[in-house]
């Protein structure tokens, strides 16, 4: 594998400074969310990944929002399909 980048390798591969917080990726309907687990039930949204620009306007996906993991219930996470 070759990296073709302007970032110097020493900086690229440097050990992370300070305690790094794990980030996990979850799918919510058609979008993907990178979240930072706070405790076994809750996580904070760090980043939204979606090709649909309108998803970035949806308040429920704003970075900083706290999600609660639940067993699958009647609350649908999927975006409107139509």
């Amino acid at each position, binding site marked *: *594998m070759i990296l073709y*980048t*302007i970032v110097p390798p020493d900086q*690229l591969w440097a050990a992370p400074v300070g305690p*790094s917080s794990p*980030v996990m990726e979850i799918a919510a309907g058609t979008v993907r969310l990178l979240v930072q687990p706070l405790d076994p039930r809750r996580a904070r949204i760090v980043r939204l990944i979606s090709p649909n620009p309108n998803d970035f306007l949806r308040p429920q996906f704003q970075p900083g929002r*706290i999600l609660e993991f639940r067993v699958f219930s009647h609350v649908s996470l999927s975006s409107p399909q139509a």
Partner: protein
Amino acid sequence: MNQQHWTRDGELPAAPAGPEAAPPAPGSLQALERVGQTQLPDADTDLYCITIIGQIEGHLVLPPQNKTTKYEHIIPQLVAAEQNDKIKGVLVVLNTVGGDVEAGLAIAEMIATMTKPTVTLVLGGGHSIGVPVAVAGRYSFIAESATMTIHPIRLTGMVIGAPASWEYLERMQERVVRFVVDHSKISEAQFRELMMKTGELARDIGTTVMGKDAVRYGLIDDIGGIGKALAKLRELVDASAPPPQTPPQKPVIQ
């Protein structure tokens, strides 16, 4: 608490979830329950927007201090855009410092081979492997303040056989040069000259090409920002509609 939780939950579908609804306090259960509830009118967009930021991450996961765009996120999005009838065009916004050669070329090839109109926009920077991605679209824009760094591919780590490594690097570089020359108006000689120039970069050989120069060299089609890029994409979408019918099959003469 539990009782309250269920009551609130039960009321959710009936409550008009308009923009006037008071935003729930951060961290409250209410905020959690609303995930997935559409609060905005679902303005259907027929344009996809794909952002490529930070490092383009490919075969290796980079340490967490790097901000990355992973190819496993981008490639399915491009496949979805290509096969979804509702998507008419794709805007690719770049602000990248480069990254994995193969991941970058994979994304660039995907963009270049799409049948739907694609417009790329370089904002901030489109360096190293960002260059092939930037030229992959049917039409490319660069912000006037944006730059693109063109430099040779570097090898780090252990080198066992110098001639073999040199040969391998040459071939890797050839893939990038070939792609850029094939998908933009820059000549191969000009691109190689920019790549091998000395005295411009402190830590490397190569050139930092400013927005206007990128257009002058033929690397990028036009100077512009989001407005021009979207207008151009819309124009390309309109020009490509109605979708071309498949031509009648000609008998193949062997």
